[in-house]
């Protein structure tokens, strides 16, 4: 219990700092004192609109999306017995993207676009599950292979859709594919899903520690492995589906956040799961602040920023881990 306190405290502080940065910076920079006055209710003018109505919903969305992806990534890594798995590896984002692009092609926007993306993610999840289950045996490698193949199938469909789409819609489609937080307005679903996801996965954390030691070992210690794997699959898929629905497919957060934590604090999932949620949320919040401000007034898709920052950081960590 004591071991969890310090890492989670540091990550919590990181989340607070990222939130402050996200609320302060934008087309107009707001000093931190003013941000504090807005939050504490003492400031009602233009900064109030700016901070609370424009930046705050977007910041909440960025944080919850990052947290959902990182939590889903951490769960998926145990499920697939592979510390380098990410939430998209089983084709969930591909299914969501195909459905979302179809919706965009038909001129559907707003909430219906989100609904289409969510439905696409669920369909992909059911396809992979059904195919991997086929013969009864349900090994991690079979699930992974099925997911990777289905994902590459979605990739081909995405390529096809982009080719036949009229130029006018192409830009919106590309933004969706790269991941973008600018269009999201609702944050209720994301927050509720995150709370539910943590509430359901935290009591399983010690089971995950045991399962990480091998499936037979886990079963011999009384862990209901078959049920746990099914639960992990459904939970991680739903978390990913909600994240993709909110912000498109944002790369690297779901892989880098849990993996960096594995290197830094170890593989105890009682620390790792809440830690990954805090860290992933903070990372995406910071990346989105950069995406809004780096080339202002031009906005970058946040997925571009996470990949540009994530690739070198990850390569560095990998080379360091090799040498250890």
């Amino acid at each position, binding site marked *: 219990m004591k071991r969890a306190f310090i890492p989670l405290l540091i990550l919590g502080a990181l989340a607070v700092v990222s939130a402050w940065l996200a609320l302060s910076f934008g087309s107009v920079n707001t000093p931190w004192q003013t941000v504090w006055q807005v939050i504490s209710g003492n400031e009602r003018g233009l900064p109030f609109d700016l901070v609370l109505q424009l930046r705050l919903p977007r910041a909440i969305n960025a944080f919850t999306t990052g947290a959902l992806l990182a939590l889903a990534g951490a769960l998926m890594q145990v499920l697939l017995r592979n510390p380098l798995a990410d939430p998209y590896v089983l084709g969930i984002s591909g299914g969501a993207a195909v459905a979302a692009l179809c919706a965009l092609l038909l001129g559907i926007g707003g909430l219906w676009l989100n609904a289409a993306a969510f439905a696409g993610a669920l369909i992909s999840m059911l396809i992979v599950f059904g195919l991997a289950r086929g013969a009864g045996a349900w090994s991690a490698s079979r699930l992974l292979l099925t997911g990777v193949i289905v994902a590459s199938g979605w990739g081909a469909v995405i390529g096809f859709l982009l080719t036949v789409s009229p130029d006018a819609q192409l830009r919106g489609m590309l933004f969706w594919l790269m991941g973008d937080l600018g269009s999201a307005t609702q944050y209720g679903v994301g927050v509720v899903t995150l709370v539910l996801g943590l509430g359901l996965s935290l009591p*399983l954390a010690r089971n995950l520690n045991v399962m990480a030691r091998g499936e037979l070992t886990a*079963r*011999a210690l009384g862990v209901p492995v078959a049920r746990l794997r099914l639960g992990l699959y459904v939970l991680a898929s739903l978390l990913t589906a909600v994240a993709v629905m909110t912000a498109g497919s944002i790369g690297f957060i779901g892989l880098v956040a849990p993996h960096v934590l594995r290197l830094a604090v170890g593989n105890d999932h009682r620390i790792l799961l809440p830690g990954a949620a805090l860290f992933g949320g903070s990372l995406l919040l910071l990346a989105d602040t950069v995406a809004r401000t780096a080339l202002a007034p031009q906005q970058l898709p946040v997925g571009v920023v996470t990949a540009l920052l994530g690739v070198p950081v990850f390569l560095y960590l990998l080379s360091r881990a090799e040498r250890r």
Partner: protein
Amino acid sequence: MSVQIPIIETRDLNLSIADKAICRNLNLRVNPTERWGLLGVNGVGKTSLLLALAGLKIPQAGSVHLQGRALSELSGRQIAQICGVMFQDSDDAFPVSVLETALIGRHPYLHAWAWESAADEAIARAALQAVNLSDCAHRMTNSLSGGERRRLALAALLAQDPTLMLLDEPVNHLDLHHQIDVLELLTQQVAQHGKAAVMVLHDVNLAMRYCDHVMMLFGYGEVLQGPVQEVLTLDNLSRLYGHPVRSVETPEGCLFYPGKT
């Protein structure tokens, strides 16, 4: 002799893998303080039988009873509090510290939200001490040698503190003095705490010295079981391994060796 409840008992157990019979109508009774050796050639199904005893493999027919209760009546947690398994190899996809690995053995005793208590940690440290790994408590599992891994797996089993220990090749990868240490430790655990052990062994001489009962798997479902003195005969061993086995008397007992054909 009084009638005691066996720690584990099989009733007409039929087990086969992919149409290959491992045992047919096996009636096994393992009583407290007994040490059983499980012998057989590679691929004859020793590990599968061990898994069936632990409830990790469903037999085709018959039943397994732990302390008089059928496995099907017990939850996974309850089984894990009575029966523990030491597997042949461990998985290192997610390396953790040696102490954390030993603490895994406490899992069946803890509730979902619980963290290991100081008492659990003391048990795990004592287990590491018993297998001579105290100095490595904070090393990562992926930095251990094959032999250290085996001893760590045994420490996790000791921390689990089951009444029945099922061990799949517990002395594999170990050098001579560690082999003896491990088997002495098991003998002492069994004798002092009224436990029982069933272990897959490849060395007949170690089975002779450290087991009081043996079970031989001949393949095609044929199983021979009984006290060491009755079952470990030259004829049985030669038939079991498909190679003539001879013996020589030494001041410290009988020693088996493979004969020249």
